[in-house]
């Protein structure tokens, strides 16, 4: 084989091996460290402050908080612009008693997207 063609073969092998070897799914790495309301907790309404703290810097402008009401309807929560770099702050107002879910999706500063869900219950104060 000609040296040029041999090099081409080696290069293709190198690239193909690189592609083949990573055929496994994987995840990003912004993980939720603490939340308020906490997972499966009961909080008193009608106004519930929301605070989520992560292990890394979060791009708050490109992150989302959505509240799923007991009837299944969704409401986007406005994320406060003045927050520490690892924290998302918002306020859910006028909540009646019932089971809610807080869905979050964050973009970490390194470009990874992560999401999760926090079920919690609102009780009448």
């Amino acid at each position, binding site marked *: 084989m000609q040296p040029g063609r041999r090099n081409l073969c080696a*290069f293709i092998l190198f690239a193909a091996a*690189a592609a083949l070897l990573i055929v496994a799914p994987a995840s990003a790495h912004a993980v939720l460290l603490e939340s308020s309301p906490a997972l499966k907790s009961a909080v008193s309404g009608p106004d519930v402050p929301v605070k989520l703290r992560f292990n*890394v810097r979060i791009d708050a402008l490109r992150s989302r908080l959505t509240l799923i009401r007991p009837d299944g309807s969704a409401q986007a929560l406005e994320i406060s612009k003045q927050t520490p770099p690892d924290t998302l702050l918002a306020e859910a107002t006028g909540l009646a008693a019932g089971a809610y879910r807080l869905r979050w999706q964050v973009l970490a500063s390194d470009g990874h997207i992560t999401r999760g869900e926090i079920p919690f219950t609102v009780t009448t104060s």
Partner: protein
Amino acid sequence: MARLLQVFGFLSVLFRGATLTFQSLAVGGIVFLIFVVRRADEDSTALRHACLRWIRRSALALAAMQISYVLANSIILRQSADMPLRDVLGANFVLAGVIGIAAAFTIIVLSSSARSSGYIDLLLPAAAIIASSVMTSHSVARLDYRAPLVAFTALHQAATATWLGGLPYLLIAIRQVQSPEVARRLSARFSQLALVSVAVLASAGFMLSLAYVGSLKAVYGTSYGAMVATKVLLFGLLLFLGALNFQLLRRGPASSILASLKRFGEAEIGIGITVILTAASLTSLPPAADLAQDRVTGSEIIARMSPHPPRFGSPSVQELPEDAYAAQKKAFEVGPLSTESYVPGQTGTRPNTPAEKAWSEYNHHWAGVVVLSMGLLALIAQAGKISWARNWPLAFFGLSAFLFLRSDPETWPLGPVGFWATLADPEVLLHRFFAVLVIALAIFEWRVQTGRVASGRARLAFPVLIAISGALLLTHSHSLGNLKEEVLAELSHIPLAILAVTAGWSRWLELRLPSENQTRGVMARLWPVCIALIGVVLLNYREM
């Protein structure tokens, strides 16, 4: 969109691994051209052109990977967060991608023009490529010590590119130059550069480990720590091969060492790719220092790893959940999730039932018996005492049939799901593919062992496939949570992966090294021992 979400995790690691690989090739080539070739005192025009050609190709592939990553991540972000395009374009990963793409195209343009002077200006876009990669690394998102961590990551990646990315160019150079003495000089220069790179990447890597792993307990107690330890072990393997190269350069006459140098270089490239892919897999995990809860303790590892009699009795198919995939989907929908943070498209996990664990242990233990027998027979065959021992690769047929029957019990022929229906499931399809791969291994290696193939590239199928299997084990999926069962499973897979990588590349060296090289004999004994040890590890595999 739903389909894109499903494969998103797969795509992001695929692009990350490929980006790191091509980045290393492009930057490593530029450093090689400037610091190794340029200082060559002979006329090296042909060699320079060959290097430039491969630098251009690597830069083009890098640009393609970066464009793909930015597009995939942007589509996911735009769709999943219902975000205006203007906001997506301002994201940090888009900016990093644009810098990387622009730098790659700058390299293509600069390396295309004919010139008589040096190529020092290529270092600027090379630095931009490293900067773009660092912008999407862990260091940028850290809360504490951000600036030093960014600097250490940049040093770590630049040194890796110089060393591992430069290696293929050394092989190209050795092939290109006519005079053995010139090839030897180029190799000696590259060795010096590699020594400095190794010192830099090890020091920077140590500092990064202090920040991301934090403690010895996190090394064995978390997936991240265990993967870092694996990287260090593979790095040790690379250093061992590098030391053999270094010795060669200092001792033998130029004409006799070049063939050995090339072969060691090939093995180093292979192990180097494995290390880079392990690194790509690491970027998908949260650093160990962030996960203080639910770590695996030393006593839990000892309890799990201590020798136990193998399980040679299997639970019946009826004892297993009827449809494991439906059960997992249901567990994901109704919760609770075993991990509270996940990437879009990631499915929830469901703890295995005792019957499923027993089923899996039985599979591993019988596979261990077969693999241990193969390793021992290969050793006996090498001793030349028993001629039929050479047929040891035929045992792979049994292993393949066993995998086909037992890896997916809910599918044909053991379970209710029909053969054709299973082919639509990627996981089952992957298992079926492995069963076919094992048959291919059996045929190739049996022909080699029995003398039916005495030369040619077919002989290399066995070592390449074994090494790829080892690397696959290191890049499998990770959960975002610190799931004890997952960490324990990972700890049992890591020795298998390292043994497989060692077996693959030692067999490669046995086949490729010139007969006068004494290391060849050592390699010939090493790989059967590794295969036998894989069998021993499999025999002690446990899930409860």
